[in-house]
């Protein structure tokens, strides 16, 4: 995570967000808030595929994050064969807000 800013992370990640043990997928489409993306999907099942820019680590591995506890800001980051736990209440809140 040292090579990625928080802004990059939020804008580029394909995120998985969990709260109280329940996982909820959050499609983060480039330049489109999640709610808008969902609405677009409902309008037409033939909507053109949307280019996605999944977050990658420095060596090209997929990155997935899970908010384990929004209150404490505990976030698990999965990359390669590693799980990294970090604490960032502001980031956890931003992810949770994006999931609403």
């Amino acid at each position, binding site marked *: 995570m040292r090579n990625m800013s928080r802004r990059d992370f939020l804008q580029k990640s*394909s995120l*998985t967000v969990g709260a109280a043990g329940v996982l909820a997928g959050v499609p983060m489409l480039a330049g489109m808030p999640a709610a808008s993306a969902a609405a677009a999907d409902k309008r037409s099942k033939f909507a053109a*595929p949307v280019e*996605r820019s999944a977050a990658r680590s420095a060596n090209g*591995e*997929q*990155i*997935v994050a899970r908010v384990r506890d929004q209150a404490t800001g505990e976030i698990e980051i*999965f*990359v*390669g*064969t*590693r*799980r990294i736990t970090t604490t960032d209440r502001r980031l956890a809140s931003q992810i949770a807000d994006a999931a609403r």
Partner: protein
Amino acid sequence: MSSHREAPEISKDPVADSSDLYAFMSPDRPGYVTIIANYVPMQSPDGGPNFFEFGDDIHYDINIDNNGDALPEITYRFQFKTVVENPASFLYNGGPIHSLTSKNWNRRQHFSVTKVVAGSVGTVLGERLACPPCNIGPLSIPDYPSLADDAVHTLPTGETVFCGQRADGFYVDLGAIFDLANLRPFQELNVFSPFHTGAPGVQSLKALNVHSIALQVPVGELATGSTAPVIGVWTAAHRQQVRMHDSGAGSDDRVGPWVQVSRLGDPLINEVIIPMGHKDAWNRSQPVHDSNFAKYYANPELADLLPILYHAPSSKNTLFPNLEALNASGKARADLEAVLLTGIPAGLVTGFQNYTGSTQADMLRLNTSISPASSPSNLGVIGGDLAGYPNGRRVFDDVVTISLRAVAGVLYPLVDSSYTPDTAAGELTEGLTSSASDLTAMGTENYLSSFPYLGVPHSGYYTPAS
């Protein structure tokens, strides 16, 4: 079943479902231990066009504890890679497969073997080792036994390995067991029974296949720790923690550390001993933490059921009065705890021990100093054959009958000489063997006399006739 579909979550993930584990001194190769871990259970041999295979996204481990700490001092890790030669064809094979390099074989697997000694990063012992195809039928694979023989690999470091489809060697009467433990030979004695006479058992797995990971290793490579000549063996399957189903990419993403989703040491533990609410947790926990489950060994539910289910003819008297009294006493089943969690200490069975210390753990314990029997008993140690289960496990051991009798109390005198087992306890059987010397398992007679010991898989073409 031994451990086929034995827990709610793993029953939905067959490629990671460890169904049987065997460990024995090789009868045809002195000084070598054979270990077989079976996965992908309950295969109907004609189950195409996508026939059965190992998971490319799974680590299959065979673990060895040789110092009694219930942690692996040695792990053999098997990883698989699937190759599709022609993605434009829906066929598994486009013509007869005469060799493991046949161009007619469209979807194949190969595997690597890595040996991890505790504290090391691991050494790759072999790579791109071919698995055999599934046994489709005589037109697709005219000489299956020969083709499968070609998939037995000897590694430069001395191990012999085979990974591929085999006939399931386990035998069990599933229909009877799961119908209120209605053992067919005694079905007229079950309190719920509408039957008036007994009946032969039914071998539920007679025509089913499985995928085997078979390993043969010099004993000197394994029994090197403080419990020598005894080793503890278990298998475990691991998946990466996160999997994302990606509709756009046509494939899934997997990230995160490898986590255990399935394990197996002794047969029937998660099947029968561990209660429903803890089976998934048991599969995900390590043997070193098995003291958390010890209370289920100490008072197994099945021991309570037997006296209730089986009564004497035309009587309300149970066939298991002594077991009923033992249950009522509330005493822990120290016999089962010893056999299944620590191994049998010296002094209880003349000429035998497979004790690994006080750490309680589910491992298949093998005393490698016991030579293969010249006249084996399918009842193993309780049949007077010290080379059989629970001293490791051979392919023909009748582990269901052994376990039923053990739960019914035949071993309790080992820890309490004043206890007399019920007569019925020593007569329990599923009716799948004609005697203790019957090593054919009622139609599972295609066991092999040499590695990998489990028989040639049943042919898809001849199913269900075979």
